[in-house]
């Protein structure tokens, strides 16, 4: 049997440079499972990609529609951006009873979406990260900060939660300004942020969108020289672009000690896929969860395995790390229980979203280094 999984991401559009690696991450998990030959007695898994465009809800729904009704996929990894994710969920996934696990839609609003138990995400809601980042800032002694965020639901939600957590912890937010991704120039934003001042600039953006532009302008004008960077900003591109220019900057990314993405990143890195961006591990995990749940339910039917996703993701059971999917499948086949850890220390809470362990990073010697796990 060949089981098809849909991978719906914005292969064109504003985050087109992140998505190839994310898709490759999830497809890597599928390959791992297919190669093991242990899923449902030797089924193989293949992926069918669909373009979410990240922004066009209609196009994204049409793509999902096609995957489900004509390609006959049994589960969907995606979508990427929160807006289109919500649209696909409401218009296509729920009506068709399709399981959907998003690796990167982090909007808190999705927690409350009507999902009929079909929607999960492997990235934590932004509410949690705000708290973590605020803690890091206070511990490092940054007493005042300016915030700039990418003007979408991710950036806005994250900025809101950072601001409120930071203020609650006693920090002073001097200003909060949005920046639009893909714009030609960020002088205006940086000028105003500089005017507001602060010990550090929090940039809640994307590493291959407006984020670096803002940092560049801030560095060049001498407005700020240390930055606090949430998950969307952490990636190889950051090291490449700034190196030790942002020495001492701090950041947070979902992750835990026991989990690591290095293996996936190495496996998928190639000439054509730049694997330095975020959400690669999450994508791997999303695909892994679907397949593990199928194994647990003994069926590839979404209606059957949806209920098993929480079981395989959480304790009790044997911990399954990246690259150990075969082991997980075996245990499940034998009727045992697993606690999937994967690339991002998956722990699903509430309505099926990641609880979120975080890795605190610091830029040292021009490299992203791990300070500790939270």
């Amino acid at each position, binding site marked *: 049997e060949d089981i098809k999984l849909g991978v719906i991401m914005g292969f064109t559009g504003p985050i087109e*440079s992140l998505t190839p690696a994310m898709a490759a991450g999830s497809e890597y998990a599928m390959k791992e499972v297919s190669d093991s030959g242990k899923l449902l007695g030797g089924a193989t898994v293949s992926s069918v990609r669909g373009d979410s465009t990240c922004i066009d809800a209609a196009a994204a729904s049409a793509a999902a529609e096609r995957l489900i009704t004509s390609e006959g996929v049994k589960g969907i990894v995606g979508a990427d951006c929160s807006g289109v994710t919500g649209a696909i969920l409401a218009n296509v996934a729920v009506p068709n009873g399709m399981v959907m696990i998003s690796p990167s839609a982090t909007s808190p609003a999705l927690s409350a979406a009507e999902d009929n138990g079909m929607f999960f995400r492997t990235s934590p809601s932004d509410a949690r990260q705000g708290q973590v980042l605020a803690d890091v800032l206070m511990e490092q002694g940054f007493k005042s900060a300016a915030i700039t965020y990418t003007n979408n639901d991710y950036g806005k939600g994250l900025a809101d939660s950072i601001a409120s957590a930071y203020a609650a912890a006693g920090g002073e937010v001097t200003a909060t300004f949005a*920046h639009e991704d893909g714009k030609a*120039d960020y002088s*205006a934003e*940086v000028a105003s942020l*500089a*005017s*507001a001042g602060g010990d550090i600039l929090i940039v809640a953006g994307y590493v291959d969108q407006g984020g*670096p*532009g803002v940092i560049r302008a801030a560095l060049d004008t001498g407005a700020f020289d240390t930055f606090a960077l949430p998950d969307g900003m952490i990636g190889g591109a950051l090291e490449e672009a700034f190196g030790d220019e942002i020495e001492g900057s701090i950041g947070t990314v979902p992750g835990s000690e026991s989990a690591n993405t290095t293996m996936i990143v190495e496996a998928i890195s190639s000439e054509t896929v730049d694997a330095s961006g975020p959400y690669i591990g999450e994508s791997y995990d999303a695909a892994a969860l679907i397949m593990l749940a199928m194994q647990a339910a003994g069926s590839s039917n979404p209606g059957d395995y949806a209920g098993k996703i929480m079981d395989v993701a959480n304790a009790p059971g044997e911990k399954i790390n990246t690259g150990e999917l075969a082991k997980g499948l075996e245990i499940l086949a034998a009727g045992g229980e697993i606690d999937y850890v994967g690339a991002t220390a998956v722990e699903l809470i509430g309505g099926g979203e990641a609880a979120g362990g975080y890795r605190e990073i610091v830029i040292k010697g021009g490299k992203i280094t791990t300070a500790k796990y939270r």
Partner: protein
Amino acid sequence: MIDFLNGLVALSNFVLIPAIAYGSQLALGALGVTLIYGILRFSNFAHGDTMAFGAMVTVLVTWWLQGMGVSLGPLPTALLALPVAIVATMALVLFTDRMVYKFYREQKAKPVILVIVSMGVMFIMNGLVRFIIGVNDQRFSDGERFIVSVREFKQMTGLREGLAIKTTQGITVIVAVVCVALLFWFLNRTRTGKSMRAYSDNEDLALLSGINPERVVMYTWMIVAALATIAGTLYGLDKSFKPFVYFMLLLPIFASAIVGGLGNPLGAIAGGYIIAFSEVTITYAWKKVLKYWLPESLEPDSLVQLLSTDYKFAVSFVILIVVLLFKPTGIFKGKSV
């Protein structure tokens, strides 16, 4: 007095210098748009992607040069690569013209058809660039980053506020001024330039005067290709090269060309600065500057900001519309088809 200077330096550093540099970048892009409009009489949506293509060739050649160990000392190596890129871009646009636009010209299609056609070309060029170099940020700048950096400036003057002027900013401004002067001279003083204007005015009559229309079109595209490549490269040097951003640049570039008056090179320059300055100044938070300028008792604790930067783009459009209401064809009385 020192306080006043500090305030002034802060204002220059954060507002004036970035706005001038950004304005020049827009102006260079707008020159290309305005020329196509002025002579071939349509709004060329593919201009942003032409810029991206030109810049991409520069990036590739620069990498190659860097690999060979060639450098220009304090200046970016990309300047050496520029001529190659210009030639490549010229080849591309001339090829496009042959394959695409020529047909519609012969059909005497309405300008709006050409606009839509240029969107088709935009999609294709867009795909081409992403195809060759990918969608990610690419760095290719080297040489001395700053003419004056913040730290140097502070050391030099002993002021609390610093001032940075980047090499690329300097180059951009100089190049923009030189380009517009050359173009102005070319169009108004040379025979070829005049024949280009004549063609744009009345194609049939140009024919009757012995002007070869295909030649005019060819020259136009070649100049536009050169301008686009220069603009794209300078922008890429200053910020970074990313194909998608060139598409997004299109909007402010059009705004600049229009507010200045389509078809007029001086208008493109003026328009570029107007758009850039309105983006940067109107939403500026004056707190920092006022802290220096006002006596302590009056020091503001709010940001003293007229509008949030969220609206910077909106503001520049409001200004554009206001200008157009008083000067319906732009500041320099542009054309309209």
